[in-house]
């Protein structure tokens, strides 16, 4: 995406090393302050359920906004024009999605000491099928999400250093740093580094905006140009654009808030007050993050007209390149920008990896493979399987298989299939366990098949079709089949608050 950035070289290497060292330092200090961190799942995976407002806010922020928010969203704005204003609304709706379940889940998480999202599914349904299927869907989605971050960090590093550091070296360098600090302090390290990384991301986004406005002219210049040459990107979109827009908002509202690493942050909050404050701050961040990146994409229309889809993917690199060549100030500002992009990628990857390990170590290993394992043993197994998974993902990142590539694209389409079980289960006592299981399977297969076939009837995304069928099966099944009185009483003990 940004490989052909000509500036950089030694300054790129310097900032990369400085970043790496700061992250290591944060991990090491966390370790010194909390030496018992690897004794229990609660401490390691949830930071002892003690994250304060600022740390919780930044870890939500740096996790939700990945490197793609800058290097991928600006080109999308470039191609779609003002229709991409939806990126502001959908990031707001992600937080709105928490209104559906976070208040209740937080209370239950405290009461029953949930560590992973699967803990909730297990407590609610007491069904091996749902627990295992839910875990697999989450692991699959998270694995592919992680893969995407690895690919992005390599390209980011290669771009930042002008190719001085090859793609692979960059990826390995940051993965090792990430593993070390995660191991040293678990969730605490991840959340503290997220704080630093979130700030770097914000600085990066604003530096890019200021540079673009100063050098290429602001929004009025860009819209003047669009009036003459690209009015279709300026006007109200046509009906298929509208349908795509609505289905994006809906999918994100229901689906994005149940990202497993986001749910773990609900469990990690120190109190309801901290959680509320973090959410209310998060709900305003889209305006100064995706909103700013959107403006950069629009300015790009005027700055680099006529790029095709493939070329436009490199938009941020091309803009940064031109801005950096202006003077020393802008040069260093752009070095900061790329540091911010890498920080954004790493902060997403570390959170995903920690959640990934927790699901393996606690939900699969600790629950089914070796139920007698102590918590330190579970954490250890999680780390080892974490490394093995990272190694496999790296091989896939470097040698992408030619034929099965699409199985690595599925993320959200699969993750979203746990939403009915997850959300309806909180409120509906008569929700029928077997119907939930069947709904999850059918929804998953349908979404996957439609994604492979690239089939999106009425312009509505495949994940949403799968979710719709899944939901219908859950609801109709629960209305048709009765839940036994003893089962209903058992459920009432869990969710009857």
């Amino acid at each position: 995406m940004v490989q052909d950035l000509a500036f950089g070289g030694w300054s790129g290497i310097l900032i990369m090393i400085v970043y790496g060292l700061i992250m290591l330092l944060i991990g090491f200090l966390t370790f010194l302050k909390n030496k018992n961190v690897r004794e229990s799942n609660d401490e390691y995976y949830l930071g002892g359920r003690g994250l304060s407002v600022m740390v919780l806010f930044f870890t939500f922020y740096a996790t939700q906004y990945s490197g793609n928010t800058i290097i991928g969203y600006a080109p999308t704005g470039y191609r779609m024009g003002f229709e991409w204003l939806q990126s502001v609304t959908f990031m707001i709706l992600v937080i709105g999605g928490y209104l559906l379940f976070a208040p209740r889940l937080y209370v239950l998480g405290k009461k029953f000491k949930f560590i992973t999202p699967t803990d909730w599914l297990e407590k609610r349904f007491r069904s091996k099928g749902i627990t295992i299927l839910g875990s697999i869907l989450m692991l699959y989605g998270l694995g592919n999400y992680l893969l995407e971050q690895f690919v992005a960090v390599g390209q980011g590093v290669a771009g930042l250093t002008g190719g001085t550091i090859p793609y692979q070296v960059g990826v390995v360098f940051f993965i090792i740093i990430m593993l070390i600090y995660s191991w040293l302090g678990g969730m605490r390290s991840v959340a503290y580094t997220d704080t630093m990384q979130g700030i770097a991301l914000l600085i990066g986004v604003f530096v890019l905006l200021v540079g673009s406005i100063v050098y290429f002219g602001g929004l009025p210049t860009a819209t003047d140009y669009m009036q003459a040459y690209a009015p279709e990107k300026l006007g109200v979109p046509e009906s298929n654009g509208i349908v795509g827009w609505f289905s994006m908002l809906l999918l994100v509202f229901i689906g994005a808030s149940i990202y497993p690493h986001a749910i773990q942050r609900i469990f990690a909050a120190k109190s309801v007050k901290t959680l509320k404050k973090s959410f209310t701050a998060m709900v305003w961040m889209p305006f100064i993050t995706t909103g700013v990146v959107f403006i950069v994409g629009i300015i790009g229309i005027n700055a680099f007209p006529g790029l095709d889809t493939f070329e436009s993917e490199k938009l941020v690199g091309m803009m940064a390149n031109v801005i950096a060549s202006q003077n020393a100030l802008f040069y260093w500002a752009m070095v900061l920008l790329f540091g911010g992009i890498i920080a954004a990628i790493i902060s997403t990857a570390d959170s995903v990896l920690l959640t990934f390990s927790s699901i393996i170590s606690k939900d699969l290993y600790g629950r089914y493979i070796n139920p007698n394992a102590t918590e330190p043993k579970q954490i250890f197994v999680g780390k080892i399987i974490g490394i093995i998974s990272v190694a496999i993902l790296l091989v896939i990142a470097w040698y992408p298989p030619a034929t099965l590539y699409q199985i690595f694209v599925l993320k959200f389409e699969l993750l979203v299939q746990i939403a009915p079980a997850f959300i309806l289960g909180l409120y509906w006592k008569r929700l029928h366990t077997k119907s939930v299981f069947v709904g999850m399977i059918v929804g998953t297969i349908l979404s996957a098949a439609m994604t492979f076939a690239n089939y999106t009837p009425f312009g509505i995304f495949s994940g949403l079709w799968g979710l719709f069928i899944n939901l219908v099966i859950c609801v109709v099944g629960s209305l048709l089949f009765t839940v036994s009185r003893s089962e209903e009483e058992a459920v009432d003990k869990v969710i009857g608050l």
Partner: protein
Amino acid sequence: MLKLKKEPIKNVKLWIVLGVLFLLSVPWYLPVGSYKPIIFGLPYWGWIIILDSIAISATITYAFLFLWKVEGEDTNTKGDE
């Protein structure tokens, strides 16, 4: 023990307001292709979407702060931050 006193999902008015704002957040109700007047470089309908998004953020903020109430012991003794 924590007890939920109020939860946003049960507030019908909240979902009516959010539902209306959601419908207004996509410009299906405006003439296709129109963009004039342009104010500070943003077409008129872009302002509508931004204002609507601000209203959504404000509504969600209100819901988190005032429609979500818990009672009971809620401080973590282990919390170090």
